[in-house]
């Protein structure tokens, strides 16, 4: 029911981005001493958001096309529905890219310090998403007078 309201969608998309990023960072840290391992990362949420050309689509226009995070959310809800065959299969909506910190002699490109900073950022992003969700709920409550 809440998925149809934009701010909830945005909050949920942001939380998902934070959790995906946390997952990638955990992999990097776990492989911090694996020879030849290359650090990866996913783009920050703002850059996913900025891809949408807001100016070209007037917000007062009733049948404006939906922004990209909305499309990806819609796909996500379809794809994660527990059906036979694709149960448990999580679509990755945020694609990964190679993000080397510094190369050590054994070919590993993970620097623990950088990864720690990134994970702190992911954690606060998640907090922000939850706060956004909570305040949206409050907003809704106020609107219905409870």
């Amino acid at each position: 029911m809440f998925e149809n309201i934009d701010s909830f969608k945005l909050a949920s998309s942001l939380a998902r981005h934070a959790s995906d990023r946390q997952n990638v960072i955990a992999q990097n840290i776990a492989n911090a001493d694996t020879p030849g391992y290359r650090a990866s990362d996913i783009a920050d949420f703002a850059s996913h958001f900025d891809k949408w050309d807001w100016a070209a689509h007037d917000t007062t226009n009733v049948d404006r096309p939906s922004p990209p995070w909305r499309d990806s959310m819609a796909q996500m809800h379809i794809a994660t529905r527990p059906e036979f065959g694709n149960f448990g299969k999580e679509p990755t909506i945020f694609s990964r890219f190679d993000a080397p910190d510094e190369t050590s002699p054994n070919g590993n490109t993970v620097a623990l310090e950088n990864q720690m900073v990134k994970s702190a950022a992911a954690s606060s992003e998640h907090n922000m998403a939850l706060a956004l969700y909570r305040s949206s709920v409050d907003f809704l409550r106020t609107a219905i007078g409870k």
Partner: protein
Amino acid sequence: MTDFLKTTEISAAGMRANAQRLRIVSENLANADTPGYRRKVINFEAERATGMVEAGNVKLDQTDLTVIYDPGNPLADESGHFNGSNVELVTEIADAREAQRSYEANLNMFDQTRQMTRGLLELLRR
């Protein structure tokens, strides 16, 4: 939610691998004075599909053993020499420190992910 579970599993795999590495280091240190002992080494391997890390098979370091001169030792040959181990204490200590540091990083990650999960579950409490 399941994403967070996966994340904690990855961190746990990292901790497991580093604990194994630390065990190998302590075995080497314990046998630093064992005649003919070759130090053990393990390699970390990344699992491409899951992103987890795994400690590979134990291998023996094939560098030359140190030759010790001690004519009174029962193991000594005619010239009074015998083979010691090829364990170098400084290398082992450095390895142990690195394993500890990586273990802590993984533990930190585990804790942080758990806190994120808790934040998510808090949403249900109202």
